[in-house]
């Protein structure tokens, strides 16, 4: 059984965002998810940073302080090799979750 909790979903969103966008700071991740999901999904700041920190500790992402276009110092996150592996796993388990939920919804 795959790991199908909500935390896993947030991880998936963050990992996918980073794999698509390369390097982003926390605020950028929030904006990207909002924009890419066509305003359907909003990531709460209160959950994002603990998740980022946990993923950094697990070695899935790596952080670096950089200067933004508007000349602010911000912490930029990037996917590691372990993170790419984790992303594939998360995508698979998400597919399973969606299939499972769909099957239940269709069950008449």
């Amino acid at each position: 059984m795959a790991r199908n909790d909500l935390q896993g979903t947030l991880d998936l969103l963050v990992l996918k965002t980073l794999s698509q966008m390369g390097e982003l700071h926390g605020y950028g991740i929030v904006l990207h998810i909002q924009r890419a999901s066509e305003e359907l999904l909003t990531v709460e700041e209160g959950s994002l940073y603990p998740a980022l920190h946990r993923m950094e500790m697990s070695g899935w992402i790596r952080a670096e302080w950089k200067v933004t276009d508007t000349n602010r110092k911000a912490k930029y996150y990037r996917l590691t090799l372990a993170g790419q592996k984790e992303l594939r796993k998360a995508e698979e388990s998400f597919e399973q979750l969606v299939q499972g939920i769909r099957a239940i919804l269709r069950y008449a």
Partner: protein
Amino acid sequence: MSVFRRLVNTFSRSKLHQEIDAEIQAHVEMRIADNIAAGMSPEEARRNALIRFGSRVVMRERVTAADAATALDAVWRDLRYAARQLQRSPAFTTTALLTLILGIGANVVVFSAVNALVLRPLDVPEPTGLYNVVQKTPGYDNQSYPDYLDFQSKNSTFSDMAAYRIQSAGLSTKDAAYKCWYYRVSGNYFDMLGVRPEHGRLFHASEEHGPNSAPYIVLSHDFWRRHFNSDPGVLGTTVDVNKHPFTVIGVVPAAFHGADLFLWPDFWMPMVDSPDDESANFLSFRGMHNIWILGKLKPDVTPAQATDNLNAIARELARQNPDDDGLCARLVKPGLMGDMFGDPARSFLAGIMLLAFLVLLAACANLASLFAARTADRSRELAIRLAIGSSRWQVLRQLLAEAVLLSVLGGALGTLFSTNLLNALTHWQPFPEFPVHVTVSPDPKVYSVALLLSIGSGVLWGLVPMRQIWTTDSAQVMKSGGAGTIVFRRFTLRDLLLGIQITLCTLLVTSSFVALRGMQRSLHAPLGFQPEGVLLAETDLHMGGHSDASIMQIRKRMLEEVSRLPGVTSVGIIDETPLGTGGSRTAVYRMGTTDFRMSNSTFGAKYFSISPGYLQAAGTRLLGGRDFTWHDDAKAPNVAIVNETFAHAMFGNTSPLGLRFALGEKFSYEIVGVVENGKYDSLTETPSAAVFFPLEQNPDSDTSLVVRSPLPEAEIVPEVRRRLAQIDPSLPFVFHSWPDALAFVLFPARAATATLGVMGLLAAMLAVTGVFGMAMYSVSKRMKEFGIRVALGAQAAQLLRAALGRPLLLLFSGSAAGLLLGVMASQLLAQIVYQATPRDPLVLAGVVITMALLGFLATWIPAERSLHVHPARLLREE
């Protein structure tokens, strides 16, 4: 996964917090900028951005929690929880702490002694590569001065070689006189050891130009402080050593006390100087073995290469000089006077260290069974914790935290107590007449060993319940409502541990009884003299500046004056008393020997010089022939009195009276008397040959007045002192009763007995608490069963058998095994303690009674409890 990063994070939380704050701050600012761009007022934009985060502090905590939960914070939480758990059961905590304090404390004390006497290098500035170069036989391992000069000049393996010997002398200033112990050392001694003067200067090899060329002395820091009030003005002044003038040129630093770990001499003097006539002789005689050689190896030379090198020189010397026949060189670790003290002290310490370690092991066994019982009691709690999702590893870690916390606490307290004890030991001077004490105060090495032992023992007994946790089936435990199902049928690890502990305890109790009996017997051993009721007054006549010629006159006057005192039954003089610290040995030859080299001798014999009347005063039985008279003087033919062993070894069963033996080409002696055998060097020695010469035919300045009197010591000492002072007021005397003077030879046995006694006591305490804990636990767990048994009509005896069968069985088998081991260990003990044998009904009975008493003590309360089972009340409680 970056464990390192986590560690860093945990230790630098504030830095981590700052980083999180900065990151959130950046986020908020970007949001505000976007909000304003989207048309919000600055006020509103800011409010909106902040609201999204909620409380900044909570946010920060949540971020840190993401890793802190798995980092060292968890360990801290475990420890806090452990502390709370321990507070909740004070009985367990107190028992465990006491056990640990005793176990670890004992180890710290013993290890400090090992550290001080074996591990720590010499207290000299440059201790590396130093070795004593000694002769073949331990105990007679001194070298001679001319041989030293040859070894020093001809070797190619040592960067330098110094010589020293310890002597006593009277040092007098204008105002006072002191009896001192001092080192006579070769000129290069200080330079080789790297010693710098604290005040003034030291002497050097370049100042030695033959006998009496450097009349200087260097004071020890302590002597300078005590007797010269640390006055630098003493430098350059002249003091008298044995009435010969010497100039004080310097003071050494407080920490320096020479190359022996336990001797603290008062001053140092160049070896070429002689404060008396006798001691100049040794500088030129190869046959006089009375110095220690200390060599410093060249950097790349191994001890084996150096030994080969020196022995090649020794063989060459032996070929050239008959006196060097059999000369050889061995390298031994310095600090304990060669092998004489070194070997016994080292093996004794190793034995005691082993015992202390075994005691700690017993303590751990004890704690392990206590802890296992406690874990069993808490099995419900543990089952709940497992059921709500904590991993087995987490539960184990929790228990381990409790064990290690207790051990470290116990270790710290134990170390604290032993530090006090060790500081007292450091200041203890076991023999008032010798400058002997050992610095055993703990150093960082001791503290780290204490910490290591604490953590190690904590882990050791904390891991014992591991299997219990691994096999816990939470559902089963919760259903059956407690620890009722813990196995009591088959033998467990706990039983084995307890059995080992009882064995160990019996072993120690047996050894201490054997040692105690040996001690008691040695006080009544046939010494060859009767020390009870004898007062000794010892001096060296050279200290009074007397020449060899006047010595006999003085001695005769002493004997006359003292014998006239009321209450004195007999009085005599011997140069050095048997079983004292000195005395010499000589090679003995049959008549007709022409080549007097060592290897041609018949045997070696201890020799003494005695006055007429000594034998009577000392209580040595004359078995045949006559005592000496004052007519056996320097002009009369040479005569001797020998002991039984001497007579038997030389002449077999024929009476030796009137027969002769030789000590050298011109020295032959007629035997005029035979005395009983005695002990001369140690209480444990086998009977050895001894010969006595008349004082006047073998002059020596050492003088021990042997005064036999039924009067108490306090009455006779002032009288004797007054009479002797009338003869020569400047002569320093040391007074003590003969039994007191034997303290030195009795010391090893006393030390062994005391240590074994203390260890035995510790082990006994541990065994009692161990058996008690086990019996108590088994009884309390089976109260309900007993209640039912009583209700069904069980008798007291049946109950007792059920309650105490297991502990008593362990007690019996453990004691039997321990007794057996004790009997075997006594053979080792026999080397230290006089006639240590377990084949002694008193010892065996003592051990059996002790163990029975211990068993009784340990099982009394549990038995009592099991007999007072009240079935109705017990069943109601359920």
